[in-house]
């Protein structure tokens, strides 16, 4: 299986990753060889096999819908790259 540089650019966009133009070819080779490895799965018949999402096939545990966290707004926001008046700042979204 082979992924073209154009496909790699599309995947990188979906993943929101900027990739430098000069590295696209390398990623295209790498991803192609990874999917070459992955496609060894095709030799196996998996008809009627139940997919396994969790090692113990456990169900999602639920908890009571009550507040358990204390308010630590300042502490939690202190890692943000840009804030103002208790808000996260991002580039302008609407003109």
């Amino acid at each position, binding site marked *: 299986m082979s*992924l073209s540089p154009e496909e*790699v650019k599309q*995947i*990188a*966009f*979906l*993943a*929101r*990753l*900027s*990739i*430098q133009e000069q590295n696209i070819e390398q*990623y295209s080779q*790498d*991803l192609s*060889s*990874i*999917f*070459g*490895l*992955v*496609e*060894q*799965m095709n030799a*196996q018949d*998996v008809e009627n*096999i*139940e*997919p*396994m*999402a*969790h*090692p*113990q096939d*456990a169900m*999602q*545990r639920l*908890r009571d819908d009550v507040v358990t966290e204390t308010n*630590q707004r300042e*502490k*939690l*926001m*202190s*890692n*943000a*790259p*840009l804030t103002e008046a208790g808000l*996260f700042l*991002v*580039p*302008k*979204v609407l003109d």
Partner: protein
Amino acid sequence: MITKSLTELSAGLKTGDFSSIELTQYYLDRISKYDSDLNAFITVTEEQALSGAKSADEQIAAGTAGALTGIPMAHKDLFCTDGVRTTCASKMLDNFIAPYNATVVEKLNAAGMPMLGKTNMDEFAMGSSNENSYYGAVKNPWDLERVPGGSSGGSAVAVAARLAPIATGTDTGGSIRQPASLTGITGIKPTYGRVSRFGMIAYASSLDQGGIFGTSASDCAMVLETMSGFDPKDSTSVEREVPNMSATLNDSLKGLKIGLPKEFFGEGLDSSVAEVVESAIEEYKKLGAEIVEISLPNTHLAIPSYYVIAPAEASSNLSRFDGVRYGYRCEDPVDLTDMYMRSRGEGFGTEVKRRIMTGTYALSAGYYDAYYLKAQKIRRLISNDFKEAFEKVGVIMGPVAPETAFKLGEKSGDAVSMYLADIYTLSLNLAGLTGMSVPAGFSSSNKMPVGLQIIGNYFEEAKLLNVAHQYQQVTDWHKAMPAAFAQANKSGEGE
């Protein structure tokens, strides 16, 4: 000091042979003396270490100390540590100060273990050589030109070079067992759900599991039983009692059935590794175990299915790094999309980007059935192989890795050849079983350490530790130290 077991350190602290401050300072001195050669630590937390040691000494004086109180340790820099930089070895989190403790850290803090520092690793735990770190590669103390394995390479090296008596790690596809094997120490990956994942920065959530590195199985038992247990903050944590793992270390192995999967001894296994593993099996025969040949017929599908499931889960987990709430943000973004793309493009290293893109493609519209669903079905087949095997045997043994530690740079140009190094470890994570690596000797060709892998059924960590401990009672491989780092500090107490 560096040859003492945790039990001996604990006794020394209780009888006053040395204080926790002295012990902790002893290890801090070793870190400052040796770590420039090894690069095992990303952050050394001297202040936290000494203040933790001070309160440990107070508890010891007050008679309220537990077995681990005052013994210093290191944490993989993937566990969140409140108020301390937690980087996951990524430029993305270079400045990230964790706002809370991982449950594992919380439990070990509560047990009175001072934190020496945060150890180096492959970025976001993606790698098998510890070369994928923003902070540079970690060196193997047995040969500084070789890799220590990964992703928990820093923790493994910290223990192997005796810069810490014990250290945490995480294992998603072999990241505890493989570096333990390559550096000649003991490491255990518990059953999925045994140790809380809360506060562990996520890579592949259905595979990730925290565990421990030590110089012996008995040291690992003491700490693992303390860090295990149900945690309501982790939705996949399992409600199940944690046994006293030290209590059964001395059980006899007479009549134990050891399964040897023929798929683990075939093509691709270095003959000098096979020799060491076979001689370890001979020791087990002397201990009264019975050897049974078994088959895990879907082993060859473990790598293909892992390299769909892990990247798919990673692409989802790592979408949280958006340059908004924490982490790296690019300079002068022109708009929101530009900010996302450049922050992530500049903040993540090559291997992380490779895996995010692999996962993004595998999950993208039209490909879900062909890749992710198919991989999950194969995961079932792999898990069924183990189920069948454990109806016949008590534990499974084999090599951890197909070869010993390779040279730095030897495989870094080729992603796929690096992935193949995980052939014997990945299938356990897919099944969710527990496994460990125990030092079993040295390669006759390059003198590098070789580990024996022991695989146990769900929640049988205590049995694995018993099986490993019995071997360590009749062998000395776990006591071997890399010569360049084997010298005790001159000023050390208790030498």
